[in-house]
């Protein structure tokens, strides 16, 4: 597609529920990233995929968070047993691996945990 596509754009769930957020990167971009942005803050790195494998998952806050990219394109961020503190905008980005490292971000999925 023309840009990074994320679904859903908004998700409201109850504490303790399971949530999946989807990201479809720019066609041809091998690198995919998940970031989390809380209100009034800058985005924080969660995880980076190069192809199908998670090359760096050091930003995942705890084991309730997991992400997959089984075919090296679309990725799903999975959050188990959601907590109110998980409420944030979840941003996906993709890039070409190369010199610049420039990331192209999607519109984000806003998660609200009640």
């Amino acid at each position, binding site marked *: 597609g023309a840009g990074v596509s994320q679904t859903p754009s908004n998700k409201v769930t109850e504490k303790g529920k399971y949530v999946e957020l989807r990201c479809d990167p720019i066609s041809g971009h091998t*690198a995919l*990233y998940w970031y989390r942005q809380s209100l*009034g*803050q*800058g*985005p*924080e*790195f969660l995880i*980076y995929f190069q192809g199908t494998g998670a*090359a*760096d998952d*050091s*930003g995942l806050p705890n084991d309730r968070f997991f992400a997959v990219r089984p075919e090296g394109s679309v990725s799903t961020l999975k959050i188990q047993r959601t907590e109110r503190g998980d409420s944030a905008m979840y*941003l996906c*980005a993709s*890039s070409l*691996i190369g*010199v*610049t*490292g*420039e*990331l*192209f*971000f*999607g*519109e*984000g999925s806003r998660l609200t945990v009640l």
Partner: protein
Amino acid sequence: ELKVEQNPLFLSMQEGKNYTIYCNYSTTSDRLYWYRQDPGKSLESLFVLLSNGAVKQEGRLMASLDTKARLSTLHITAAVHDLSATYFCAVDDGGSQGNLIFGKGTKLSVKP
């Protein structure tokens, strides 16, 4: 641990005025990025600065990088209302590519 600080965090300007936003970072890096974010929207890439002394300009915005001072500036010339947004700088932490450390952002409001 790499820290990125922006100042000011809030900036109210009149149209036609000039101003500079500063981005300081705490450890060595030679890759710095500026992004713009409109309310409720995602981040739009503005500038990619990859070496000491790099200067990039687009319209009324100009960004520069001094890696020795660990400082980048985003200069706004003759501001217009359409520039109202939040501006983030982000620094590559030197680990895996794409692990960027973002500042808290500068919320710019340009008033007529």
